[in-house]
């Protein structure tokens, strides 16, 4: 059987890749895609801990379900904001957004 280590390293790799995407992308939709990667890394850790450490009542799996629901909600709001800002300012690049600057 695979030790718990490997799942945690996999989650750490996915998390770091997501952080790299958030830091380097200019396109806001690309940043949202990278945020999905980060949330999924957390989910892998939760499910692996649930299997290996024996959390009560399947706590890890249920929290992963909540994380999936909140990730869906977050990406919906983010994409609607991108479309609304694009309608006003015709840009999807994060370094050209200056609506809230004065």
């Amino acid at each position, binding site marked *: 059987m695979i030790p718990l280590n490997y799942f945690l390293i996999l989650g750490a790799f996915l998390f770091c890749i997501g952080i790299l995407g958030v830091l380097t992308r200019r396109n806001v939709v690309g940043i949202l*895609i990278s945020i999905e990667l980060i949330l999924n890394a957390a989910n892998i850790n939760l499910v692996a801990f649930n299997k290996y450490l024996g959390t009560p009542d399947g706590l890890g799996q249920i929290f992963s379900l909540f994380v999936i629901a909140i990730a869906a909600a977050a990406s919906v709001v983010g994409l609607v904001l991108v479309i609304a800002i694009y309608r006003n300012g015709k840009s999807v690049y994060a370094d050209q957004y200056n609506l809230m600057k004065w």
Partner: protein
Amino acid sequence: MTDITFYFIALSLCVFAFLTVVSRDVFHCAVWLALTLLSISGIYFYLGAGFLGVIQILVYVGGIITLFVFAIKLTAHIGDAAIRQTNEQVIPSGIVVLILFYFLIKIVVSSPWAKIDPQAPVLSLKELGASLMTTYLLPFEFISLLLLAVMVGAIVIGRVKK
């Protein structure tokens, strides 16, 4: 045999995640993200969390990817090849991410529960639903409230003002 399954899924997951972040066209990003999420559902199936794997495919690959594709196609000239897709912080943030990865690996390897065997019995769907409806009922209801708020907020923000 099962070990080979895990290594195959993990390798494909790493490759797809890397391609998600580095590919230029955002539409390609969304396609690679779909494959990454499918690999993650494979990890869930491997860990015995079958319900979570099915939910992952339904919600993520079925719902969120569709949403991303719509958002990419509604914002035109988004995948123009002449436009730079990364900002000027690629090298510093790469160094920061490498340092972060090094310390995460160091913490994971030195932890006391790194090499234990699985202890929890695989939870059946019936038990999962029962604990969702009894022990974790309050967060469940809060999630439904959150989804309602998000639905109303998305309609209000995305509405075309006359």
